[in-house]
């Protein structure tokens, strides 16, 4: 689960699954990377998009063949977590996670944190459950949805133990929406849509909302979406956002994913 006082980079994947496999393979291992199964990706592939991303990550980590223990051990030592080796060699990795033998920090590197960008608007239960079943740790709901839907979404996420992201795309007063909810979401996304950005250059990311929301609600993490350059992504994180979401940057230049990720992780803490 996400921690406070940590800067995360959320990478939204929207290309074909084949291209995504290559990009994931290039990504550095870090518990500060959040992987987003993008909204068009889910509409194309359904929840298979989530389970595929999870498989790509495991293959990256464990190699294509699970039995290849020497590769696993090598990678674990590189990460400075050799004690994991015994647990893995002895067998049931997942059982060890459930029994708390692997710390959350270590398991975060091995287990990708995947956000399913469902953008729920109504009747969220089925989709949220399906996303969790496919391996998502979080799902998104629209701040534009009826309050009944947002309340039901947050409650459902709490019940099945995944993080709730509330996407404030096109919401004029995010603060007002939050004040009407029964329970707060884990993350609030301040968002400028792709179509908006392309057709209306004047619309800005509402950075000024970050302080106001964080000043009132201690536990909410803020994600800022829509940055087009590494610089803009870093500015977002210095504006006190906890999560910076990049989309265009990586999907238009998949070959630069390593550089972009390393630059962000290096410049933010």
């Amino acid at each position: 689960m996400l921690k406070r006082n940590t800067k995360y980079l959320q990478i939204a994947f929207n290309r074909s699954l084949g291209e995504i496999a290559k990009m994931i393979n290039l990504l550095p291992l870090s518990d500060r990377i959040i992987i987003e199964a993008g909204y068009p990706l889910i509409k194309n592939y359904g929840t298979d998009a989530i389970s595929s991303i999870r498989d790509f990550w495991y293959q990256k980590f464990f190699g294509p063949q699970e039995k290849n223990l020497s590769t696993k051990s090598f990678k674990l030592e590189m990460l400075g977590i050799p004690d994991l080796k015994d647990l893995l060699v002895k067998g049931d990795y997942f059982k060890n996670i459930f029994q708390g033998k692997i710390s959350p920090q270590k398991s975060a590197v091995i287990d990708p944190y995947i956000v399913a960008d469902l953008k729920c608007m109504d009747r969220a239960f089925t989709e949220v459950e399906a996303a969790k079943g496919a391996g998502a740790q979080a799902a998104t709901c629209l701040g534009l949805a009826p309050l009944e839907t947002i309340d039901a979404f947050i409650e459902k996420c709490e019940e099945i133990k995944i993080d709730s992201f509330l996407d404030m795309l096109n919401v004029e007063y995010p603060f007002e929406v939050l004040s009407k909810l029964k329970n707060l979401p884990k993350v609030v996304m301040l968002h400028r849509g792709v179509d908006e950005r392309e057709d209306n250059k004047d619309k800005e990311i509402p950075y000024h909302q970050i302080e106001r929301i964080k000043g009132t609600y201690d536990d909410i993490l803020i994600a800022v979406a829509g940055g087009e350059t590494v610089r803009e992504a870093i500015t977002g994180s210095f504006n006190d956002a906890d999560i910076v979401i990049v989309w265009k940057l990586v999907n238009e230049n998949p070959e630069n994913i390593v550089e972009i990720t390393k630059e962000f992780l290096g410049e933010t803490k």
Partner: protein
Amino acid sequence: MILKRNRKYLQIALNSTLNEAIEIVRKLPFSERVLIEVGTPLIRIYGKRAISEIRALVPSYIVADTKCVDLASRDIKMAAASGAQAATCLGVAPVETINRFIKDCHKAGIDSMVDMMNVKDPVSALKSLEKAPDVVIIHRGVDETEFSKDKQIPFYQINEIKNNFDVLLSVAGGDTIDEVQRSILNSADIVVVWKDFYQSTDETKDLAKEFLKEIR
């Protein structure tokens, strides 16, 4: 526009599993007045194959309930390529997205449907667009219906919209025969039902016929 004016349609929304949806589609009577909606949960869970698998079964008019809120061009491309005749966009989406949605639907030769769920003043929302969509959906959400029993379908909006725009009007969110009748009495062109068609039963075919009888 593919749909015809001065005709009343029954839209059956499929929201359960893909297998269940296929079973239901197989039982439905074929009629040009029956529209099949591939519901949002089906698209989110199975992706575009939910549309193409149903397309392969029947020649019916298919509505892909994409509930587009951003990246309109990609949604339309996906829906049209999978065999849908219409896609949906949210009325609460940024105006840039809705404009792009309507324009791209027209280019792709499919009908544009704008869903007014949670839009307080649909007439003003429509006035802010460059061009009106083919269909406007008046919608009370499932969660709203379940958790706020007093929320009514805003039937009064039908004539308000029809007096101002040359669009077809679709009503979603009412599932009883009584609500279907009220929609038609209030000049709706399309009535969307889903609850009775969540699972395939022996009565599926007769139910569809019964609803069709009410919608003339």
